């Protein structure tokens, strides 16, 4: 039985009330008031589609042994690299073996489900054991655009396999249409879209029913057989009409999170699927449809194993952890939409030395440290000579991944002098659980959240962005655990 073994989700910490955007940009198009309802999820200044995919994947594989993993697939239309396989960074962050199949899926917004289908096909064909599929997007609309209001940031991840599946894959139906409703050229930062009425009527209005009909016929089921129906469409009234047209009971149609997250691009239907699985029971039949350059329709049935899967943070967990972003200009700065003065200090050039990065690849991406076989001391970064003063053994180390260990705050500060696009820079020393300490950035928090002894989790984030060479560098940061006890 091939299907989903586990799921994970991620919604970034910051949410922006859409009226904050409209309050700044409504003057250019007052009609955008119609889109200025609710809030959208905003990736922090040190997050992007890759880090959000990692966060979802970390949530997804928590508790699973990855030593037999067959592949890592990453889907996004906003990946940091055109050349340099982004999926390798996801795999590196998860600390997988390098002898696996890694692939990026991009282009149309259906690429997320296509990655999921590719994983299902690989496992089904016996070519891979487990495959991690992670999808995320952080798309941009121009200042004052409808897309700026509609788009949100988030990600979802799934572990596909043939053991202990919690949702059995029952079938799929796909279409590919060169229907250019949304568009970005290879050199373009912002989304451009054609007329809404055309997208609504000729896009969502035609292709979603086409995919549903195709799947139902192929799998011998009726639309009304499904307990949870997932499809993207941010036009509210069109959604109601589509439900009626296709015979979906409104209470079986999963909310698209438009009011609290926004359209998460390639991740949209997968974020909804992840959330739906978090709320599913054995026997539920799920219909998942993606939309964008065509559709994928997938049919899953939830199994009894769902009871055995340890709880995930999931979309629901991350939705509950939130902070308000009340500054539109901060949003612009975070998304690098405007030139920002970070002082002459901020103009200092930092090269990325790729041959060095390659040697330290597992330290940077996987937070790999070492444990001394002589004295048992865990340390970071990995050492050849044991750091424990009364040990000092040479080359007696085993390598260990530490990103999942969490830690405790040992020292902290809030630095107004450091060049940052999000001052003050919060950082300090963290004692890693199980041993070792290192100076980390703190993120998703404010100074008042920091106290000596407070527990932290590690989160994969953008370490620095080299705008001269368009290089995004990543490392792990420490996030104070919500409600953590000192």
């Amino acid at each position, binding site marked *: 039985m091939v299907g989903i073994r586990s799921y994970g989700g991620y919604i970034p910490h910051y949410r922006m009330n859409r009226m904050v955007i409209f309050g700044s940009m409504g003057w250019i198009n007052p009609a955008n008031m119609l889109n200025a309802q609710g809030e959208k999820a905003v990736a922090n200044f040190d997050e992007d589609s890759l880090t959000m995919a990692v966060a979802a994947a970390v949530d997804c594989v928590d508790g699973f042994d990855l030593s037999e993993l067959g592949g890592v697939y990453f889907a996004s239309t906003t990946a940091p690299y055109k050349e340099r396989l982004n999926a390798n960074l996801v795999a590196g962050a998860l600390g997988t073996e390098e002898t696996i199949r890694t692939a990026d899926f991009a282009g149309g917004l259906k690429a997320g489900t296509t990655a999921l289908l590719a994983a299902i096909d690989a496992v089904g064909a016996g070519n891979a054991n487990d495959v991690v599929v992670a999808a995320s997007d952080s798309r941009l609309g121009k200042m004052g655009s409808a897309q700026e209001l509609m788009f949100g940031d988030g990600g979802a991840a799934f572990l596909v396999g043939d053991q202990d599946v919690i949702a059995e894959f029952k079938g799929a139906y796909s279409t590919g249409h060169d229907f250019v409703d949304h568009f970005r050229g290879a050199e373009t930062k912002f989304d451009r879209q054609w007329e809404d009425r055309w997208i609504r009527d000729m896009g969502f209005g035609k292709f979603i029913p086409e995919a549903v009909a195709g799947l139902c016929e192929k799998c011998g089921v009726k639309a009304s057989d499904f307990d949870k129906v997932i499809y993207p469409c941010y036009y509210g009234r069109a959604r109601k009409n589509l439900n009626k047209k296709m015979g979906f009971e409104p209470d079986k149609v999963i909310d698209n999170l438009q009011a609290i997250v926004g359209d998460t691009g390639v991740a949209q239907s997968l974020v909804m699927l992840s959330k739906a699985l978090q709320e599913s029971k054995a026997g539920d039949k799920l219909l998942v449809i993606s939309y964008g350059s065509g559709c994928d329709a997938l049919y899953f049935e939830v199994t009894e194993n769902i009871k055995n899967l340890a709880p995930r943070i999931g979309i629901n967990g991350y939705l509950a952890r939130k902070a308000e972003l009340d500054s539109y200009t901060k949003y612009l700065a975070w998304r690098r939409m405007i030139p920002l003065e970070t*002082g*002459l*200090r901020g103009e*200092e050039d*930092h*090269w*990325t*030395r790729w041959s*060095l*990065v390659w040697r*330290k690849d597992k*330290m*940077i991406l996987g937070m790999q440290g070492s444990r001394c076989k002589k004295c048992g*001391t865990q*340390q*970071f*970064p990995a*050492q050849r000579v044991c*750091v*424990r*003063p009364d040990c000092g053994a040479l080359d007696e180390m085993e390598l260990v991944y530490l990103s999942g260990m969490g830690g405790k705050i*040992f*020292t*902290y*500060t*809030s*630095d*107004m*002098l*450091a*060049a*940052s696009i999000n001052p*003050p*820079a919060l*950082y*300090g*020393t963290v*004692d890693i659980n199980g*041993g*070792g*300490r*290192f*100076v*980390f*950035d703190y993120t998703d928090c404010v*100074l008042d959240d920091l106290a*000596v*002894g407070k527990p932290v989790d590690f989160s994969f984030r953008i*370490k*620095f962005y080299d705008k001269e060479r368009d290089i995004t*560098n990543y*490392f792990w940061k420490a996030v104070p655990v919500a409600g953590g006890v000192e």
Partner: protein
Amino acid sequence: MAEGIRDKVVILGMGCTKFGEQWEANSEDLAIESFNECLKDAKIEKKDVQAAWLGSHIDEVNIGKGGNFLGLTLHLPLIPITRTENFCASGTEAFRGAAYGVASGAYDIALALGVEKLKDTGYGGLPDSPAFGQMATMVMPNATAPGMFAQIASAYSAEHGVSMERIKEAMAHVSWKSHQNGLMNPRAHLRKAVTIEQIMGSPIIAYPLGLFDCCGVSDGSAAAIVTTPEIARKIKPNEDLVKVKALQISVSSGEEQMYTDWDGAGMLTTKMASKKAYEEAGITNPREEISMMEVHDCFSITELATMEDLGISAPGKATDDILDGFFDLDGQLPCQTDGGLKCFGHPIGASGLRMIYEMYSQLLRRWPEERLVKDPHIALTHNLGGVPNQNVCSIAIMGLD
């Protein structure tokens, strides 16, 4: 068993420029000025200098690498010149090189000169340079010196159960006292008295450090000429001589940064270097035996923690000593008698030698009465370079012959 260099080296002469924003002076001008004052004080000629050590730290925005700068600036006659770079100990390292050169018998007379011009960076604070190697850029926070040193406060508070308010109050006294001293010093960069209220109310640079808890960067140079006691007595038969009693360096082992035993409330290197320096100098009770000090007050919290690391204040009790005025100019153990880094700013390669210059001048009673420490015999200087979890500490102890 090595016996150290106690009493084997005499400081024959010293020089020190005014520190400050020297917009019209090049590094060359600063070096020439400190060297000439030093030469005059030593009562020798340039040709008598047999070897030189040059302290500088941030070579990228300054004088470049190697010892060439000094040879080319002073036109020294093809003598050995070694540039010493060891963070904020660079100046004291130059002094150590020269002193060891003399103590070993390799040279009769040697020069140590520190120079640093930091005001050509275009911005305040130390330059953003890859001080900890290329990997630091990839994995460590984009940290600044105040941010790294500020962390001592959170650890100190947790370790000793001293409230952050009490720490802030003591830190304010540290800076207040230094400004009081710097006010009287024509060579100081900042010569303004500030009130405790001004200090406490200054904007936060890196929590809990405010603007007045931080020293600034500056331009400056200081120099020393050292020789043997025998030669010194020939050149200066009727003058007091200042002898080197101890020179010690300690460098982090990584246990601060990576192992979890360190309490973060002070510097292991300062503890180690001062212990060895007291042994070398024959000091058993530093609190009573040391007459005055110049310590590395890059930040007021550093000075606070250093008082315990040096064994002057009992663990957890530095705030008491500070607030009791123990380290004030009229206190039992005056500290930063010239105004410290707080008032001089910190041209890194020059600072260690500037501190020695102040102690040397105090021991020789060269200052106006109002600035003089009463009856000094033993003086200590201390540098702490790098950041609390990976650093280098230098200690120099000197005394009257």
